[in-house]
């Protein structure tokens, strides 16, 4: 592909290698006894990774403080659950509906509040997700079955194959993560992705350079929600019973933490941070009463060890080296303006 030849997409190849290793790991786990638990942990991580990637578009790339992302996930899962359990649709058909309804919801609720700055937006997103959760608890429109939630959601069926075991779902979930990572990676390395970053760093300068801020912010919200809605579709048949208790505010904060810990919206960082936080939360349960205490402690410690996030924010690489010195200089070196004034790097 043109894109890969043109630039040094190290991240892209890292991704390929990573997913290959994961596939091997899954096979090893499947054939070992007790590996099922680990597969489930991996699947949990996969779900959260996909979610964090979708939040990353909003929070990591655009700098919109969305601390209610779990709401979009919940909405997607509920749409799927209702369509499946009430109307009997196969799960896979519900996917576009879950995604679109969630995106539409995000768009509509974001519209009046998108102009809010930083923490004001954060509070609003918290509010929206709590309102939605309470609506689910109160059995809104008689569809969500209240606090009990919706049970008996079918498994996903594709081309006659039913994704039942953890092993099968592993491929489903991580396949989705891989596609997501790939598409979002391309997105980041484009005009669109840059525009989101411009907004994050300086709205005034962004709009002064022709970026339609409101439009991009809304699209970022809707896109993040669209994806979270799809993850909801995958999650519902994975967990098979969904209830409002699964979508509490703390989960939003956990997602938020994953994106921050990842460091500067870095995709590889997000995968690692999901492993670290979600994986640890699962693994630490073996310490019983002490597990959450340790989990909290671990979050503090990790942050202190890596204040800038697990991964350094990697600047996009452009294949422009060959263009240096090729164009005429309008002012340039003869004036001594720019040359030689940079302090030198010492190792």
């Amino acid at each position, binding site marked *: 592909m043109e894109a890969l030849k043109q630039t040094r997409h190290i991240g892209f190849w890292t991704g390929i290698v990573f997913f290959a290793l994961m596939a091997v790991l899954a096979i090893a786990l499947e054939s070992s006894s007790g590996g099922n638990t680990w597969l489930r942990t991996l699947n949990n991580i996969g779900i959260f990774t996909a979610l964090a990637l979708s939040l990353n578009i909003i929070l990591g790339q655009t700098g919109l403080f969305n601390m209610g992302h779990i709401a979009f996930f919940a909405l997607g899962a509920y749409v799927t659950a209702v369509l499946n359990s009430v109307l009997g649709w196969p799960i896979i058909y519900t996917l576009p509906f879950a995604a679109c309804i969630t995106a539409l919801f995000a768009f509509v609720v974001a519209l009046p509040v998108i102009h809010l700055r930083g923490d004001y937006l954060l509070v609003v997103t918290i509010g929206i997700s709590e309102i939605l959760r309470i609506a689910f*608890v109160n059995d809104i429109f008689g569809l969500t079955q209240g*606090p*009990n939630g919706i049970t008996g959601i079918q498994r996903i069926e594709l081309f006659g194959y039913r994704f039942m075991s953890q092993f099968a779902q592993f491929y489903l979930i991580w396949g989705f993560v891989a596609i997501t990572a790939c598409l979002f990676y391309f997105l980041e390395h484009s005009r669109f992705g840059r525009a989101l970053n411009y907004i994050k760093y300086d709205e005034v300068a962004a709009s002064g350079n022709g970026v339609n801020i409101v439009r991009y912010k809304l699209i970022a919200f809707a896109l993040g929600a669209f994806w979270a809605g799809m993850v909801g579709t995958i999650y519902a048949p994975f967990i098979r019973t969904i209830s409002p208790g699964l979508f509490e505010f703390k989960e939003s904060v956990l997602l938020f933490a994953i994106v921050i810990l990842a460091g500067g919206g870095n995709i590889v960082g997000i995968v690692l941070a999901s492993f670290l936080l979600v994986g640890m939360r699962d693994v630490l*349960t073996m310490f*019983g009463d002490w597990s959450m205490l340790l989990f909290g402690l671990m979050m503090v410690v990790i942050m202190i060890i890596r204040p800038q996030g697990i991964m350094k924010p990697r600047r996009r690489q452009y294949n422009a080296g060959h263009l240096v010195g090729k164009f005429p200089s309008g002012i340039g070196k003869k004036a001594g303006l720019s040359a030689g004034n940079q302090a030198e790097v010492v190792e």
Partner: protein
Amino acid sequence: QDVRIGLMAGLTGPYASEGQDTKRIIELMIEDLNAKGGINGNKVQLVIEDDGSSPGTAATAATRLASTKVPAVIGTYGSAVTEASQDIFDEAGIVQIGTGSTSIRLTEKGYERFFRTAPRDDEQGRVAEESLNKLGFKTVAILHDSTAYAKGLADELKAQIDKNGRVNTVFFDALVPGESDYSVVLTKLKSANPDAIFFTGYYPEVGLLLRQKKEIGLDAPIIGGDASNHVDLIKIAGKDAAKGYRFISPPLPTDLDTPVTKEFLASYKAKYGTYPGSIWSVASGDAFIALVEAIKAKGADSEAIADYLHNDLKDVQGLSGKISFNEKGDRVGDLYRLYEVDGDGNFVLQPE
């Protein structure tokens, strides 16, 4: 060869005290059983997973248990939590005996290997309406806390009331559990002016309601469901405010006079120094007894156990009364009794 049994309980999370007590009871019973030689000479081994009292964690815990290939699992407390694990155990073909999960739909979904030792909400709703009528209340305010269990019971009670037409519902609403101040809802209740208030939620809220009801000057008595059957209720409300509080619940082991319960209580007291605080942890003991019977008869195979529990287990003496299951997996027999709190904070069983 050892027999392995799974236990899924909320060792952490909001229902941790139930979960911890459950764990103690099952561990104690296994200890006693193994001391007597186990099941047909085989020692019993327990595999415990914490469901964190939350549906999400429960699903993970259930998968863990399923992957250990135990034939049967006891647990858990809380209908929503149980519900999150049902599909997983069902898929794995494992027998599950719910303990403190009373929501109706748990046994209405046609699972072949799901049982429970807790009675169902419709049964409790029926008894609740019966009691309200017997106590002579004409108007009642129903209050729940939006949790799966409490909402279910509230709906059931309301349905029974509407059906029989002997009592009038003048108020139906929820409070938010875990808060500290319920004066808003109490003020609202006061203005509805009911003869009695039926609260279907859990003991901590009952405690606060009782305490704050007094402060706000609301006289109508509160009557509760089985989730308020917990000794901590008195601590929270204070003896004064708790006096006269009534609730319906399966009987406490201390109120039962069978040799099985007596032996159990003595052993519990000897080990832990107190009596068990909640009926639901005791219900897990019932589940254990039923399981042991089944394994004794048919061996540690899930299908055989399920079959035995459905068809062959009849009126085995448990900790909270006789145990048998119907074809849906529900416990058979009427268990509910009315309790009242006396001036010293004791739960006194009311004569039927």
